[in-house]
């Protein structure tokens, strides 16, 4: 059955009139931003190069910049242990070597993150209370914590981060920058392995630092800089 003449035109007119009042499809981006949560930054993903290999160099900059600490560079090693290994920007180069080692499949000794040893929180709470939970006094807090526990347990660092509001990455960066801090008890063999190469004032110095200081002393004509 065919339509009476003119009905098609009326139907078309009705359609356009409905469209006239329908909500519009235009996205008015700069004026009207999309309705997403306040801290939305898009979908996080790792990119691949044209050969299909991961482009990530584990440079830690994304983890350092992440405002909500939702990025952690790490993963499970061959023994099924979880490693988190971000740090301050000054240590990126070292950490790249670490990450290369980790990608090779071998275990990287990092006693600070092997596990969380449960600690007695009472001394730490007293320290935090005494320092008014002030992230600006982080160094004093860390020194007091090391004095109380003998080293800096991960659980203590976590608690400090939680109580002061400082990012964990900052606390870890601070603690790993100063050489008087250790992440393992002094008697621990794994912790000693890092510190054992020297006995004395050069403890916990980095190898390159020693070479640098020696060269500096030579250049300054035998006047010791930082040398005993």
């Amino acid at each position, binding site marked *: 059955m065919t339509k009476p003449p003119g009905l098609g035109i009326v139907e078309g*007119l009705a359609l*356009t*009139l409905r469209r*006239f009042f329908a909500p519009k499809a235009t996205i008015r981006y700069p004026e009207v931003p999309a309705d997403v949560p306040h801290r939305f930054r898009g979908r996080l993903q790792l990119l691949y190069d044209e050969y299909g290999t991961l482009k990530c160099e584990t440079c830690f900059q994304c983890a350092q910049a992440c405002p909500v600490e939702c990025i952690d560079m790490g993963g499970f090693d061959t023994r099924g242990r979880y490693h988190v290994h971000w740090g301050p920007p000054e240590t990126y180069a070292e950490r790249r070597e670490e990450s290369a080692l980790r990608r090779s499949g071998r275990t990287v000794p990092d006693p600070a993150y092997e596990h969380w040893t449960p600690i007695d929180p009472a001394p730490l709470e007293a320290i935090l209370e005494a320092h008014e939970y002030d992230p600006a006094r982080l160094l004093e807090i860390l020194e007091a914590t090391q004095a109380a526990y003998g080293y800096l347990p991960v659980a203590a660092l976590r608690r400090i981060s939680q109580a002061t509001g400082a990012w964990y990455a900052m606390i870890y960066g601070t603690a790993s920058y100063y050489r008087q801090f250790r992440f393992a008890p002094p008697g621990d063999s794994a912790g000693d392995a890092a510190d054992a190469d020297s006995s004395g004032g050069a403890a916990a110095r980095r190898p390159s630092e020693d070479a640098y200081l020696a060269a500096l002393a030579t250049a300054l004509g035998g006047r010791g800089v930082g040398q005993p």
Partner: protein
Amino acid sequence: MTAVGRAWRRVTLPGKVVLVLAALAVVASGLLAAAAVLFGPPIVAFLEANLPLVRFVVAATAVLLVTVPTAFLIIYMEMKVIALMNLRIGPDRVGPFGTALSVVHGLKVLAKEDFTPTGADPVVFTMAPVVVFMATVMSLLVMPFAPGLFGQDFNIALLYFFAVGGFTVVGLLMGGWASFNKYSLLGGLRSAAQIVSYEIPLVLSAAGVVMLAGTMSLNGIVERQAGSILDWYVWQQPLAFLVFFIAATAEANRTPFDLTEADSEIVAGFATEYSGMRFGFFFFAEYVNVFVVSALTTTLFFGGWNAPFDWPWPVTLALDPGSLGILLLVGLAVVPVVGTLVFAAPFWLARSDWPTWQALLAGFVVFNLVAVAAVLGWAFVSFDWVVGLAWFMAKTYLFVFVFVWLRATLPRVRIDQLMDFAWKWLMELAFLNMFVTAGALLVVDQLRG
């Protein structure tokens, strides 16, 4: 002198221009005032002696001036309405809601090169857009916008309207022929064929209305339709209205009958060689033509400036501003200040976080809105022609909307379909309508004795 010279040198270049212009304006207004005082009475006497001439000049100027905002408004309306029907937003960059985009288009067209092809007849080539535009504008002269608001009340206004409107064909043929381009010539002939073909059903369908009204004066036709909505001729002449509207669509070169330009498939027809403002004038004329055709539809079939119903509660406002005398001046000085303060008070009281100047500004804006609304309302109540103009414009723009709506909906027809439709359907329907109307008039006359 040195002080004046220093001050003059400190003024920037635009400032110098403005200062010179301001000085010229002061001198010119002074001269005008002096001339009015010295030669006022003889000038007024001369103008009174030649009133028809004055009336024509004023009407022609007014009609010419009115076409500009009309075309801009219709162009904006077309862009916006079609965009909304396409689920887009449409122009929204220039001006509030993109309303100034038509102005930008006009300036763009003005800034383009005005090109005349080698071998073209320059005089005819230049005159063609003018003829098209003038044909449209001249037909506005007899249009009754409101009671007392028309250029000229002819007794053959409708005939004049179709005759002057027919000049459009001449303009299109001139453009097509003078372009020195065979495609333009073909386009011009195609347009002429279309417009001449559709002119016949257009006029024949209007003949029924003329028979009913017994006059060809557009004013007379509108006055015959006075009363309620039931007295409009569309109820007695529905077929004529349908034929008229379809033919008018073709006459105004609107989709689905815009074969004359058909911008998306054939090279713009007669306008192929045109550029710049001459090209713009063709389309300027087209948009004014849309308004003219809508206005004629309103006049013939929808009661012109007649309101569809009587306002059930007649309001009379016996307020003559002239009778207030000096109080009017005092009121003009005092009311804005007091009104601003009164309307600013609620903002100032309710919004304690706003600074005072902001509350005052809001009060000023609200006062202006209220004042404009009050003046418009007073004019609406006090003057017949304001009411008539409001109704006339409302109906006319309703039809303009329908034209745009059709353009957003219907695809273009083929040229043979176009011709078939005009000659095999519309003309027969128009004749049928004319004969039936004539017969009905005879029967009614016989019955009434």
